[in-house]
């Protein structure tokens, strides 16, 4: 009789262990996936363009407006891969 109880208790312990391990594994996999997702983020937002004089944005000397309209990445003052 005591052997039967011992088997039942042991089976229960094993079941709990297996279920707990599986749950921990799922949680671990989930945390790994979320860590990977967290690292797969877009690059940084562009830095602010600089101040403008009282003459306003129209004119050849207004570099911030020129940067905003520029076709090339370099002139647009966009981030580079060294500081993503």
């Amino acid at each position, binding site marked *: 009789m005591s052997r039967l109880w011992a088997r039942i208790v042991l089976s229960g312990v094993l079941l709990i262990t297996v279920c707990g391990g599986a749950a921990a594994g799922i949680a671990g996999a989930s945390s*790994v996936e979320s*860590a*990977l997702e967290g*690292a*797969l*983020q*877009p*690059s940084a*937002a*562009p*830095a*602010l*363009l*600089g*101040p*403008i*004089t*009282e*003459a*306003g*944005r*129209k004119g050849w000397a*207004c570099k*911030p*407006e020129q*940067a*905003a*309209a*520029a*076709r*090339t*990445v370099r*002139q*647009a*003052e*966009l*981030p*580079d*891969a*060294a500081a*993503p």
Partner: protein
Amino acid sequence: MTVRTLAAALIVFAASAGIGGAQTYGSGTPPPRTTDVHALRALAQAREIHERFEIGLGAERQGAWAAAAPEFERIIALRPGEPQFSTANYDAGIAYAHLGRLDDAARAFRTAIGGDPEFLAAMANLISVDLSRGDLREARAVADRFITLAPDSARALYSRGIVALRQGDTAAARVSFGRLLQSDPQYALAHYNLAIAQTRDGRYAPAEQELRIALDLAPSYSRARFALGTVLLREGKRAQARAAFDAVARDPGGDVALRNLAGAMRDAITTP
């Protein structure tokens, strides 16, 4: 004798007149040609606006944002015409952003655009501020308008792509970064961001290709190499993924958190 004396006197007189002319001084600030009170007030106000712009911009050049902001606030309070009103708001927005007053910065850039609806630099800065304060809806609306006004602008395309990615709109992100790459195929960040959009859509093969191009262009781009490891892992290429994570973990110039995560990923991958 009298004739000679007269001629000499004329020569001396002519020479002294020339010297006198050379000694005259120009007036720096012309005196107001009016006695009208309103006109004098307008002149004084114009002078104050000019001086405050000079002081405010000088402070911004030195990074003295707290000193710059009140100068532009005073100009705005004086309600000057365009382009000064929108420009003062734009410059105030820059000062607020650097002071961490992001809501005030967004309001200032918004007002600048209200005063000058085609103010591209103000749109660019409003998007950056909105991204920082998490207002993706406004950032997207401004980015869409920015693209409409300047379809070939690299900054407009990049900003719209970043906003779209943050919103989870991978289709719009692919379009923006694709167009940016058409005009500048050498831009590693555009390849990286395009790969992020493709990865989120489960398009691993083209994502891998974009990341490899990004790394060819910028071999020290750790975040792209980490993304490559992730894509390779999802493609079932475990040995290659492990090698990519290992390279990131060993990169002495890389971000510490990224290196630690890459090291953990490398150690977790068991290869047959």
